[in-house]
């Protein structure tokens, strides 16, 4: 038996059979519907830890933009029902800037959660001062009306 000529044929057959089997298997493997609509329910928070400072760090290697980096916030839940939404927001009035990130809570959420804001870029022309005053907020956006859960003034330090 010539191994070199048979093995590829067997391999091809295996791959083809696997592909063809995907049709029936996919039908059997439909994910279950999720219960509850996102944005309904309620959340009660016992503790929120917000960072004191954020940074605007100028890029390296020829990238001259400033990277805005905000440390994570930690939220400890007292009670959680349904699928509420929390957002983590930074506003810097001096730059007319704000950025918000949403977190969808549900039965799988533990008793605490880290809220993070992704790194953002600001153009070198806009960043002039050595520091800016900003406000960090955690906001409950479940339902029609939003409610500020926690708020803290932060210093956004510029590093060049």
């Amino acid at each position, binding site marked *: 038996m010539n191994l070199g000529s048979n*093995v590829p044929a067997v391999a091809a057959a295996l791959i083809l059979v696997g592909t063809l089997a995907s049709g029936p298997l996919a039908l059997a493997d439909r994910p279950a519907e999720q219960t509850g609509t996102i944005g309904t329910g309620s959340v009660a928070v016992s503790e929120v830890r917000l960072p004191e400072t954020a940074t605007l760090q100028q890029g390296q290697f020829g990238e001259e933009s400033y990277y805005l980096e905000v440390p994570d916030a930690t939220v400890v839940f007292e009670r959680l029902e349904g699928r509420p939404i929390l957002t983590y927001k930074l506003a810097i009035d001096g730059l007319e800037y704000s950025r918000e990130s949403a977190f969808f809570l549900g039965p799988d959420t533990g008793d605490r959660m880290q809220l993070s804001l992704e790194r953002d870029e600001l153009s070198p022309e806009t960043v002039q001062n050595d520091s800016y005053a900003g406000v960090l907020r955690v906001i409950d956006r479940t339902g029609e009306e939003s409610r500020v859960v926690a708020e803290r003034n932060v210093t956004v330090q510029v590093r060049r």
Partner: protein
Amino acid sequence: MSTLDSGVAGRLAARTEAVRTGVWRLLFGDRVGLALFLCGLCFFGLYWRLGIYITDGSAIANTLVNVADGRVVLTEVPYGSGLEAPGTYIGSDGPVGRNYGIVALAVPVLYVLQGLGAVLDLGVVLIGGWSLALLGAVTTVGRLVDREWVVVGGSVAAVFAFLANVAFATPVAPTLYPILALQIVGMVAAALSGVFCYRLVARLHGRRIGVAAGAAVLVATPIAFWAALLKRHSFTVLCIAAALYALARSRTASESAETRRFRALAYVPVALLAWIHAAEALLLFVPLVVVDFATADANDRRTLAVIAGTFTLSLAPFFLTNLLVAGSPVEPPRMLPSYGAMEGLDLSGGGGGGGLLTTVPLVGGLLRIVTRFVALLAEGAVVALTEPGRWFRTFLRGGYIPAVASEDGFQAIRLTVLESAPLLAGLTAAPVAAGLWLRERGRAAVGSHLQSAAGVVDTVALATGVLFVCLFLPRLPLHAQVTVRYLHPLFLLGVYGLARLPAVRSAVTANWRTTGLAYGGTVLIGGQLVVIALAAIQPGLGEAVQFHALLALATATVLAVWAVARTLSETVSGRAGAVVLGAAAGVGTIFVLLSGIEYFSYAGEFALPVVRWFSAALPLA
């Protein structure tokens, strides 16, 4: 099967076999070509993201949706900002798209995907297709190098890759099918570009350097970056590569009938390119027709008739599409007024009266196109000669350019030609080599060299490259380019130029193994070092891209120094050159892989789920 071998079945089988070998020889040439093709597809598949990367992709996907339903006019526009998506024009009967040539190729692929998706899990089908390509690649390569362990080990690896990916497969939404169809034809075009580069170089200088050149195009240049990203550039490169190859064949042919056939064939890709992007086709057509007729042994009536007939016939789809879209056979979509914001090459001369050209007689229309085109090129030539800053920012070092970055989300995510393909630094030695050649052989030898196969291809390649620069340089540097994609053909032409340099050629062919080891080492070990360094720095997107830019420039400098030194003196080590060339190619590959898997992973879900896991596991932001 022998029991079925009656007369009819036998003839049918023979006919099918003939067609099969015909297509095979037309596309791949030989088994090396096939191996390169399959390896290229597997490589592109590693970072294939199912989705639209830049907004221009929406218009072509919208066009495909409508053409697949049998309309050139866009009535259904599911992608991007609908009719406002850049690349949508006002045709004679309503809004139309562009790149109809690509769309036409994608239609059958879309039908196949829809058929398969109806009965199978398309996510698994894509994984199966990729695994089969891998299986084909390892089997072909293993048999070429006559190593059974490659065949056996590779086959096992292909099955393992299939199972591992299927375990994490997720369903693919049917709304993605048109995008996938376009991505697949794009990857095939990019892979074939490598194949034709191999065939072209192999025809002039032998298989070994041919394989190196073909592989370099596939894995070490931005051709790999853009392979699956719904842009026309892969097709432009393929058409140029195919035209140059046919031209080379016409000059190396032994019989006059063969010469005639390949001369005629050289114009087919030009016509197909016109169907995709008419202006770019002109940039290829003009040098080709001038050089071809000036250097041919015979331009008799029969040859003229065959060439003109073939060219006209291959232009039929282009004329027909224009007629349907714009109402005039010589008015391609890009000359129509734009529906939304303008992007790309504006040949319409200020927009407005879309019906104007159609009312002008055909000759008048053609004349206007030619005048406008020559004016654009002349403007480009003036810019090229008077604005060295633009050259520097386009070819050497880009960095942060406020006007460009502001359109790229304030990120310096734009590389120059050299930063995206450090391998091209070897071309620094080209003027030196040309000078030495002239001093050695004298001016009298130039004439006969220009008549030779290599000389003819060199001239067309150089002229096409210069024309592309003239047309696009005035708009560069520009946002949403990443790797100066407007000058995409330069990467193919540059690799061809490298393979033509005696210093590079001798270094690679004499140190075959060293080149391969240097390349593999750079990608596997150097790639890990890059990941470790970046994980320590925690760069943003722009920083990461500029890190690669600086790395590429460092490698490019070493390569340029070596290439010039080696050209000047034979005592400079060829082996060292093999190492530097391998490393420069490797640095190009590292950028393609990391950008696809990590930096621009947001372009869509990975076709191979294992890569999704790998992307998440990489410690880069």
